């Protein structure tokens, strides 16, 4: 690239810092709210310096409903990701090695069905689950998560996998290894990072999911995002608790996201950038 003029460099720095602020200030505002007393929270002008209090955190950690929501979220996300991996990894293996129209069409169908707005699926699932008794069960929610997680993992693994040369696998097959052996002994060890990254990304999506959890879980199977909304509905003004609970959902998502950011970028661009 060309040497940039001073003015342009200053403008670039300016915009970068500006946008960093745009991202961070709202987030810190919410984080601050979680450690403010009620009086500090509503003071005008806003208090930027205040005595932090962790009352809200200790309250939600003693709230059995909140704790069971944490548990539900973990159970559902972890199961959904595990089940997704079981079908998605072999599928990605096949798609990576196949050629021709069947492969192309399968890949596209998986993408298109995932892009359909969740609300389209929600209504029939509600009616169906109501009939067969899957409303308010873990398994009901886990099944729905598969719709989004399986294609996500396949689509993320494909470019990573395609970037790994198949020479070793080819050689193994010529020597008489079965496809299953090739998958387990050659491809998977090379693909560990990609699988871990796609699992984490799928976990984040499951962890963050709100729409299905709101309707298909009712009384027993309440996940974290729904539990927070219930704070809003039933305890309208307890902003401290809402903010503290928000930190509980958002921090794991961001921390995990931090580790997979490179892979995610690779996954979205068809392997143009390696992780």
């Amino acid at each position, binding site marked *: 690239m060309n040497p940039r003029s001073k003015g342009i460099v200053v403008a670039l720095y300016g915009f970068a810092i500006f946008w960093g602020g745009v991202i961070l200030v709202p987030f810190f505002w919410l984080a601050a709210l979680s450690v403010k007393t009620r009086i500090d*929270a509503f003071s005008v002008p806003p208090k930027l310096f205040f005595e932090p209090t962790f009352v809200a955190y200790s309250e939600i950690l003693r709230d059995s409903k909140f704790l069971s929501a944490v548990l539900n979220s973990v159970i559902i996300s972890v199961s959904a990701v595990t089940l997704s991996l079981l079908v998605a990894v072999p599928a990605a293996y096949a798609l990576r090695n196949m050629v021709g129209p069947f492969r192309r069409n399968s890949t596209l169908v998986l993408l298109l069905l995932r892009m359909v*707005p969740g609300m389209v699926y*929600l209504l029939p699932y509600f*009616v169906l689950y109501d009939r067969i008794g899957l409303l308010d069960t873990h398994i009901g929610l886990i099944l729905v998560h598969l719709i989004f997680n399986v294609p996500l993992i396949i689509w993320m693994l494909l470019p990573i996998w395609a970037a790994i040369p198949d020479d070793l696998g080819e050689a193994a097959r010529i020597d008489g290894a079965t496809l299953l052996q090739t998958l387990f002994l050659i491809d998977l060890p090379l693909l560990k990072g990609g699988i871990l990254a796609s699992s984490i990304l799928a976990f984040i999506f499951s962890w963050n999911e709100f729409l299905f959890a709101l309707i298909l879980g009712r009384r027993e199977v309440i996940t974290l995002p729904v539990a927070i909304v219930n704070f809003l509905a039933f305890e309208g003004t307890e902003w401290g608790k809402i903010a503290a609970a928000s930190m509980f959902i958002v921090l794991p998502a*961001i921390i995990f996201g931090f580790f997979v950011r490179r892979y995610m970028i690779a996954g979205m661009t068809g392997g143009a950038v390696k992780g």
Partner: protein
Amino acid sequence: MSPSQALYEPYWKRRNRSFRPFLLPALALILVLTVIPLLISLAISMTSLSYVSVRGPRFIWFDNYINLFGDPRFIRSLWQSAVLIFGPLPFQLLFGFLLAVVMNERLRGLGWLRVIFIVPMFFPPIVMGLMWKVLFTPQLGGINYYLSLLGISGPTWLADPTYALISIVIATVWGWTPFVAIMFYTAMQTFPSDLYEASRIDGASWLQQNRFITLPLLQNTALVVIVFRIMEGLAIFPIIYVMTAGGPAGSTETTNFYAFVSGFEFLKVGYASSIILTFLAILLIILAPSIRMLLGNVQPREAKL
């Protein structure tokens, strides 16, 4: 298949067949989990199914669909969906481009900012909604206090029909600009450096390079981004749900949200299905021309044989 036929079968077909069993479980699972509900949805949309009616559901053909177009609330929701999908788009594209340029320049000391830029991508939408609700709530959020320091008397935001819509647009720009930026940034990594080299020798300035090389090369990526944003423009449901719940006075009710309200508040499941399927059809009609192109673009690299 006779042995002689098998002998002449091309290698790639045989190879495909041996890999097929690995693909089928995933394909079967996804088809069962999506196509069956879609068919159920289609069936329900032609009935009067309602959880409040004492009478059982009747089959009423396309009555729900016909009623839709006489339903002012539906028509209005279409308009509001368009505002919430297309309103943020220019800002997301502009800021996303600028961010991508900043990231691409690898300025000293800004590595950590690249990490911060993508934070919203992992944000649970529900928390995003709560966060902006806090910010826009008088006293709690402080936005209006800081506006008043600038001599601006801030609106009531979420309580005002026009500004409620704008508030959601702002939240959406915050949330999805990073996605656009990352898409642009990764595309830029693939641009051949000799183009920039040649233009530099010809005396092009930095601005000219961005204007006449980078921007035109980003066209395809921009189209992919736009298609994704239109399809996922509906994914802002949680944000609307916590920020305004469709209000005030229905001013932020998207078609998506109206389907939700019809189905799960009015419990008119049949009618709600017809709303959301009509909306899906409209989206697909809008997107049909670009979907072919999109698919060519996001198709992962073909495996070498």
